[in-house]
């Protein structure tokens, strides 16, 4: 039930211009949201989506940009996020930002002075938190410490945090980027209910189906300008992508057939990983083989153990079991061992375990690959810079310059940067954990192309993604993981999202029994 199209505007951002040093992130954007609608904000990586919502949330404080902002027709100027919050604006940032040292409940209600007067009532807090989580379909004990959660779980905590403040306008910056189908469904149910209760929402995503499913109107940004404003029914993939990039949509998943009987690159049997604290086992007796030129997909639900598996193979998570690379038995204790065995990993949490915020873009790309531009341990700056630039061009990393701070790249561009780092050493085995997290549709197909090309050149890839559709579309062979075990496997074309979900449900049913 779309909000009636003549509903008054709640949020109006008029002729917004935002510059960062030399770079212009927003070049005169007019952005209007009607009361009670869910408004999609679309655009390529670096188009300016996050910047726009940051401006609406006082993250970029009034004065640091040009233009006017109206809430309910009244002009506002937020000097801080605190003011925005008081102004009834809720915000779920794109990057994971939680208080690791506090419990989940404390995180959800952080900064809310309302509760139980000035005294904190732990019980009340925790009860209310668990209610929220049940709605979000995440049954975390409210007293769990956030430090113990997976990135995806942390993201849900952030969403709960925003909801707990009961905002009139809720802005979600790629809330689904690290969620898998089931969680997304739940989130949508919740958002629809909020909408029914009159909450207005701005929803940023790179997943077009979500837009179709959820949103009433959409604004498409392109290089800091509004490229299109679309109404429900007007948006189909073609139009949107055209508006976003001026390109036409290339086939999303390029065709790929693995070479028959190519040599086995990676062979794992009986791999187990001790659980974190309470988990008796995070991974249990994993067997797996990866052939040269093969794309192996791993599907699974949030917290099912996919990242742990990749981590174990890469040596960042202690494991038991046997790993053979190209037939040779290898013991991988540290990432270094893995790298020496030509294994590379793209991690799922850029901020925590991907980027070096103290180094500029170029050096972030080359770190760990320095042996390529050094002789006798002495660096060759020219060669290094050249290689970095090449990577930036190849992967279209949009950055003001190679010396800009990575912190100032847009989410998707950070992702591409990390991909570039991983590829620089031309690994034989490539482990990709959420490779397209926060990457726009255009670039997405580029990355898919890249993955397939790598496979063509004989690289073996394992792809973990929370988007079932992506795993199924990409993988020559798809393994389904639940509770740290493989519960199903199928070749390209033989599987479907339903099959995955069914086998997972089945596995859990039998485990419960």
């Amino acid at each position, binding site marked *: 039930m779309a909000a009636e199209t003549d509903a008054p505007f709640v949020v109006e951002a008029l002729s917004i211009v935002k510059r960062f040093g030399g770079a212009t992130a927003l070049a005169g954007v007019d952005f209007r949201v009607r009361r009670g609608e869910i408004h999609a904000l679309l655009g390529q990586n670096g188009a300016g989506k996050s910047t726009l919502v940051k401006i609406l949330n006082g*993250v970029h404080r009034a004065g640091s940009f040009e233009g006017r902002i109206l809430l309910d027709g009244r002009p506002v100027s937020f000097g*801080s*996020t*605190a003011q925005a*919050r*008081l102004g009834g604006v809720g*915000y779920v*940032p794109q990057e994971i*930002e*939680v*208080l*690791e*040292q*506090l*419990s989940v409940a*404390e995180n959800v209600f*952080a*900064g*809310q*002075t309302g*509760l139980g007067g*000035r*005294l*904190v009532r732990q019980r009340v807090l925790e009860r209310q938190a668990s209610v929220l989580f049940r709605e979000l*379909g*995440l*049954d*975390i*004990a409210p*007293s*769990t*410490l956030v*430090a*113990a959660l997976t990135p995806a*779980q942390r993201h849900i905590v952030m969403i709960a*945090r925003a909801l707990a*403040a009961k905002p009139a306008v809720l802005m979600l910056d790629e809330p689904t980027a690290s969620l898998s189908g*089931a*969680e997304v469904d*739940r989130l949508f149910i919740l958002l629809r209910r909020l909408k029914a209760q009159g909450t207005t929402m701005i929803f940023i995503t790179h997943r077009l189906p979500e837009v179709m499913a959820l949103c009433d109107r959409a604004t498409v940004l392109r290089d800091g300008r509004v490229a299109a404003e679309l109404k429900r029914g007007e948006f189909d993939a073609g139009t949107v992508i055209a508006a976003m990039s001026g390109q036409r949509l290339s086939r999303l998943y390029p065709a790929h057939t693995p070479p028959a009987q190519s040599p086995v690159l990676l062979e794992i049997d009986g791999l187990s990983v001790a*659980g*974190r*604290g*309470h*988990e008796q086992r995070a991974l249990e007796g994993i067997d797996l083989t990866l052939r040269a030129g093969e794309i192996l997909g791993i599907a699974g*639900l*949030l*917290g*099912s153990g996919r990242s742990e598996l990749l981590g174990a193979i890469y040596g960042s998570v202690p494991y038991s079991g046997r790993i053979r690379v190209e037939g040779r038995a290898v013991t991988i204790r540290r990432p270094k061992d893995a790298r020496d065995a030509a294994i590379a990993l793209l991690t799922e949490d850029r901020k925590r375990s991907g980027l070096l*915020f103290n180094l500029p873009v170029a050096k972030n790309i080359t770190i760990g690959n320095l042996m390529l531009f050094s002789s006798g341990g002495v660096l060759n700056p020219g060669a290094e810079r050249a290689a970095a630039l090449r990577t930036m061009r190849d992967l279209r990393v949009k950055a003001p310059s190679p010396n800009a701070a990575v912190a100032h790249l847009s989410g998707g561009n950070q992702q591409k940067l990390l991909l570039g780092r991983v590829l620089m050493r031309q690994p034989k085995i490539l482990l990709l954990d959420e490779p397209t997290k926060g990457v726009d549709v255009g670039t997405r197909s580029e990355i898919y192309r890249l993955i397939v090309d790598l496979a063509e050149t004989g690289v073996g890839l394992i792809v973990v993604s929370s988007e079932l559709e992506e795993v199924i579309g990409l993988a020559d062979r798809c393994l389904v993981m*639940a*509770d740290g075990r493989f519960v199903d496997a199928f070749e390209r074309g033989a599987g479907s999202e339903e099959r995955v*979900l069914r086998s*997972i*449900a089945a596995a*859990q049913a039998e485990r*419960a029994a």
Partner: protein
Amino acid sequence: MGTLEASGRIGAPPVSARDRLIRLFAVGEVGVIGALVVVVLFFYALEPAFLSERNIRAILTVVSFVGIIAIGQTILLVNGEFDLSVGSVAGLCAVSSAKLMTVFALPVPVAVLGGVLIGAGIGLMNGLVVVRLKIPAFIQTLGMLFIGQGLIQVVTNGYPVYPLPPSVSAVGFARPIFGLGWSFVFFIVAAIAADLMLRRTVLGRNMYATGGNPEVAKLVGIDTDRYKIGAFMLIGALAATAGMFVMADLSSGTTSIGSGWELAVIAGVVVGGVSLFGGAGTMAGGLVGILLLQVVQSGLVVIGVNANWQQIAVGIIMVLAVGLDILRRRFFIAGGAREDAAPADPSPLRSE
């Protein structure tokens, strides 16, 4: 349905039980209390006089001085900052109020108030510079340490301010409870108040957020700047109070009051499990840490350890206490909560 159970592992009863365990052992004090008990018993075994009423009194008296500052330091650390200037602020405020009550012949209460205000004022300055100008607390407060030392010389010209009005010594000599002085009374009251504040009030909760991750704290609408500045002012005022209690105890405004406290106080509370990087630690922990260090120092004297070896022992025990604490965490809090507790966690980027 499906996912509910899928993630259900995380929510199952045993888990939240475990969590409670975690939270119990995650609170910094358990380890250091253990260390304290061990140390006390050790000294007592070697020299029963160690637990003589008098020695205990003497220890508690000194602890009350440093402890008053430790209260402020703990709160400040929870807010993600720290203050190296406490020692010289204590000294400066002591001699200043001494001058006020002698040279300027102000009534003692007024002079004392003056001292406290100076302390709070310095704290305010530290806070403003750190928060607004984004100068690292290390530099600002170290600079203030020097400035304070200099001002002590300027105010006193190097001579102790002496004699002081009799009422001052009277306060210093008074023994309101169990033969312990007013400094101790003040210390206990302040400590309890501070503990409740940190654990039970929204204020305290927001402080942990502020120190834990300022970005997030701001995001959820906490005015981190105000909190930090407030904490700086508080520790300034507390340092002043401690300094003046020492002055009363010596019934003289000695220029060396507070010298060397800057590191001692931080060391104590960190030994007590308060994180140098903000957002973690408890009042109880911090204060037990201070107590532990003091107990060790006077214990070594009581059992008559050779002077040369005393300092060595202090250094070793200090490290051991923290080590013990970290092992405890490793042991009781596997993987998950590891980050949360360990002050060892090198999660600095907490500079301003």
